[in-house]
């Protein structure tokens, strides 16, 4: 039975890493963000940060680090990003390649604007409830609900060729 947050250290580390790597698409930067968050938690030295509250606090820090990293990257690589987006567009023939399914989904998620992307990742991959996502992002539950619906609609349009090829 896990009685303390730190007993779940490895588990939390992995959950945070998965979130960060999906946000950043860069394992090295993701690992840096997760490690930085744990170090900040230690420096915080706050007795109240235990269990779920510590986990949530870590998600908030990792999310902020990811966003700051993405903004920095966007400033540096604006022109390159535009080219990448064009070349990353899927065609049905690509979509039918089973080994490219993962890459297609990844591209589709990463093309989402950050406010939609982070919600999709927290809900679809980390199975978080709307209330928990809202607490991490610091926004109302209604915003989570509407952004998630909008994101799913975009993904449906984007992944349509892939889903058709799969049926």
């Amino acid at each position: 039975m896990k009685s303390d947050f730190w007993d779940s250290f490895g588990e939390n580390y992995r959950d945070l890493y998965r979130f960060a790597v999906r946000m950043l698409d860069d394992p090295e930067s993701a690992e840096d963000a997760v490690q930085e968050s744990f170090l900040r938690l230690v420096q915080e030295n706050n007795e109240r940060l235990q269990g779920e509250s510590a986990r949530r606090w870590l998600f908030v820090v990792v999310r902020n680090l990811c966003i700051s990293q993405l903004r920095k990257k966007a400033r540096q690589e604006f022109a390159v990003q535009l080219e990448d987006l064009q070349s990353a567009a899927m065609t049905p023939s690509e979509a039918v390649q089973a080994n490219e399914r993962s890459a297609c989904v990844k591209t589709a998620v990463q093309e989402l604007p950050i406010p939609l992307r982070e919600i999709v990742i927290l809900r679809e991959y980390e199975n978080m409830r709307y209330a928990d996502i809202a607490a991490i992002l610091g926004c109302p539950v209604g915003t989570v609900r509407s952004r998630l619906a909008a994101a799913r609609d975009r993904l449906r349009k984007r992944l349509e060729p892939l889903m058709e090829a799969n049926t």
Partner: protein
Amino acid sequence: MTWTPPQSENEWLECLSAWQDGEMAPDERRSLEEFLESNPLRKAQLQALIAVSNSLQDWKVEDPEPSPAFVRRLKKAFPGKNRLGDSIRRSSGLSVPSWAFQFAFFLLGALVGAFAMSLLPLDWKSTSHILSSNVSSQPGVVNIFIAPDQAEDLLREVAAGNLKDDLLRNVQNKQWKKAISLYNTLLEKYADTTAARQVVENKDVSPLKELLRSEERI
């Protein structure tokens, strides 16, 4: 609460998306399901959203272990004999705390737990309600002291219960990829909870287990 069909396309998307995530009130959920039975267009829209969620599960990310260098760095940042130090020692395969430390900690936990339980003659449902209210700090909710160990267990039970509900709904809707992901999460992270035991014994989950067996995943 009376459910009225959404008016705009955006509201429909939100409504169907919330149904998919189990984020609707039970009566609203039932009303929507009844509505969908006689509205194939909206039902197809919901199935498309479910297909999107299933497709998203194709993107897998490997789970790394914390690197030994990071564990060392974290340990250095947090020296001394404490829970973090102990946890990191366990995580990095080093020695566990002494029996005296463990015993003292256990005794303290038991005393605090017994005291908290004497203040809380509540069943699981009412306790988890109080706990979740505490976490969300909603106004008008009385905060009641609860031992950290019990709080952690209760949070795990609540989280596992939510996963179980999600899982059963996905099995019922034949959203197999999502169901498999939830089933694995439940058994890997919350194997010691009541919800996990209930899922293992639940006959409704049999088709999923059959599927997993056929894929030689269990």
